[in-house]
């Protein structure tokens, strides 16, 4: 054992280029933190620096994208450059950049310490990126906690606001509770297979030392990840946390951490617990997680949509809508789990990533408008506050309507093609339960029309009794709105380009993940 250890130490397989996108962002974050402690409160400077860091990180990601084989894996197989990593990392960078643009107006209004806020966004993004790139449970756990701890603080950013305090506390307690379950699941999987590396776990699930632990560990991981991506019955924290958190941060939480949760959820279950010939326990494990997730997807879409109908607060309504969207993404997830070939699996994974991309861009656009309309103190988020503003502020109300229609999944918008792509793999499998799941999801899409259209009706057709002055649209938020509106149409019309870019990595033959042993 000692010689083996020494050999590993002598060749730690450090390939900095493999983690360059993450490194750039982490260094930018540390730099801003130091800068902010000397020259505090320069929101423009720290925002610009963060955006530059994100752009540099995007360039590094692009370099990985064109040459995925050179840096296919690093750090003894702990980091893996594959379709999950590249597609989801692109989503995270976009989410972080849009969040920084959207929150400029809120940072000004609320006198939030700008530097700290931008640093937290960057560190949360680094955590998300490691969740997508980590091919080892240690890295996934570290990424998850980096993300979660930064997000707990962001939820409580308005220190004097009772709702923000409450949101942060609920998020913190339930989030760490879920982390403990996730961690126990990781421990049992390690115990069952003797490895924390996802590729090695996949290779040894068929011949696990303790097959029973494999099943218990899988169930605990399901609970932990279920909490993080907010699936029913682990969704109870979502409405309160999303309502109480400051509005731009709610948008960030619904788009980024949810996508990151899906990235590692996909990696652990679809790639880590595949269907292997032979092992009875492995077959049973695969069968039970697919069934469990199909049932959870049915529950999640139904509960999310029906609970959203009765909400009177727009943020709370969008919180339930985000639960429903996690359910739609789960449909694609299950589709990836039952895919017959590796190519079909990668395509289904790319479909889930594309779905999270369309959801993120639509949702952040909607939250940009809601942030502007919430004004100072971040309070005006009830449906009543939207009464009759339609023609008084046409730009905001028409863009918000567009985002609602995209969330609903109207053809020509991004939301429609996203749904089609995630529903297809599950339908093609031809199993009864999966077909039922897709049918339930489609019926629920029709149900969701009620509450998305309600907001549009309220804006354009309700009378308003009080005076209302349209908020000014600052340049940064204007840019974010432009990007999101164009994104909704671009992804709706040219989804093929994006899917091809996402799967292009998979077409090149993947190098064996762990080249150390």
């Amino acid at each position, binding site marked *: 054992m000692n010689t083996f250890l020494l050999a590993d130490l002598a060749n730690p397989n450090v390939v900095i280029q493999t983690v360059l996108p993450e490194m750039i962002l982490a260094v930018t974050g540390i730099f801003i933190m130091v800068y902010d402690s000397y020259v505090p409160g320069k929101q423009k400077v720290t925002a610009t620096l963060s955006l530059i860091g994100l752009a540099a990180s995007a360039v590094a990601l692009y370099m990985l994208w064109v040459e995925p084989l050179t840096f296919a894996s690093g750090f003894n197989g702990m980091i893996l450059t594959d379709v999950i990593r590249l597609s989801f990392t692109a989503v995270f960078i976009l989410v972080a950049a849009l969040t920084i643009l959207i929150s400029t107006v809120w940072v000004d209004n609320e006198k939030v310490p700008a530097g700290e806020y931008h640093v937290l966004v960057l560190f949360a993004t680094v955590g998300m990126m490691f969740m997508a790139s980590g091919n080892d449970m240690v890295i996934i756990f570290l990424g998850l906690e980096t993300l979660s701890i930064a997000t707990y603080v962001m939820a409580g950013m308005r220190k004097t606001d009772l709702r923000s305090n409450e949101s942060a506390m609920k998020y913190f307690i339930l989030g760490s509770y879920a982390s403990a379950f996730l961690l126990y699941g990781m421990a049992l999987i*390690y115990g069952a297979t003797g490895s924390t590396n996802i590729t090695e776990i996949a290779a040894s699930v068929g011949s696990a030392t303790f097959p029973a632990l494999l099943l218990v560990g899988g169930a605990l991981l399901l609970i932990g990840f279920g909490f993080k991506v907010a699936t029913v019955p682990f969704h109870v924290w979502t409405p309160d946390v999303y309502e109480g958190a400051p509005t731009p941060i709610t948008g960030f939480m619904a788009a980024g951490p949810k996508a990151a949760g899906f990235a590692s959820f996909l990696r652990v279950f679809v790639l880590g617990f595949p269907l292997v010939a032979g092992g009875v326990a492995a077959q049973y494990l695969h069968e039970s997680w697919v069934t469990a997730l199909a049932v959870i997807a049915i529950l999640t879409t139904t509960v999310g949509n029906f609970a959203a109908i009765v909400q009177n607060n727009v943020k709370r309504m969008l919180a339930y809508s985000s639960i429903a969207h996690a359910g739609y993404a789960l449909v694609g997830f299950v589709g990836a789990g039952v895919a017959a070939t590796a190519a079909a699996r990668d395509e289904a994974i790319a479909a889930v990533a594309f779905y999270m991309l369309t959801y993120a861009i639509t949702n952040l656009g909607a939250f940009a408008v809601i942030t502007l309309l919430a004004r100072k103190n971040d309070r005006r988020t009830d449906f009543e506050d939207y009464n009759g503003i339609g023609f008084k502020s046409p730009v905001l109300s028409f863009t918000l309507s567009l985002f609602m229609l995209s969330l609903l999944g109207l053809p020509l918008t991004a939301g429609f093609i996203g749904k089609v792509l995630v529903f297809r793999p599950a339908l093609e499998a031809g199993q009864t339960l999966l077909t039922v799941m897709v049918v339930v999801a489609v019926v629920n899409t029709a149900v969701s029309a009620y509450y998305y259209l309600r907001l549009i009706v309220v804006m354009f057709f309700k009378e308003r009794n009080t005076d209302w002055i349209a908020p000014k649209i600052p340049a940064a938020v204007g840019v974010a709105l432009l990007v999101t509106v164009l994104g909704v149409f671009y992804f709706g019309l040219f989804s093929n380009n994006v899917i091809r870019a996402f799967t292009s990595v998979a077409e090149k033959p993947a190098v064996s993940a762990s080249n150390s042993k």
Partner: protein
Amino acid sequence: MEPSLETYLALSGILFAIGSVGVIYKRNAIGMFMCIELMLNAVNLSFVAFARHYGDVTGQLFVFVVMAVAACEAAVGLGIIITFFRNRESIDVDDASIMRN
């Protein structure tokens, strides 16, 4: 005679169960947080037991990572609880009830 792997796993499972029931049962935010720490340490015990069983250091390294993360979580969590206490003069989670359906 030295305890077997099963003994450690059983102890770890019992500690985890006590912690998770405690989080649901407790109404005091600090108490809930302590129960979560108990759960994390129960998991650490499992990791070390497995690492010893396999003669592999990965499990022990995982424990270091978990301990570091738990320390960060404690710092942030206590900060959040203190902010809550300042505004509400209570750390009873039942008082965190402005937002309800």
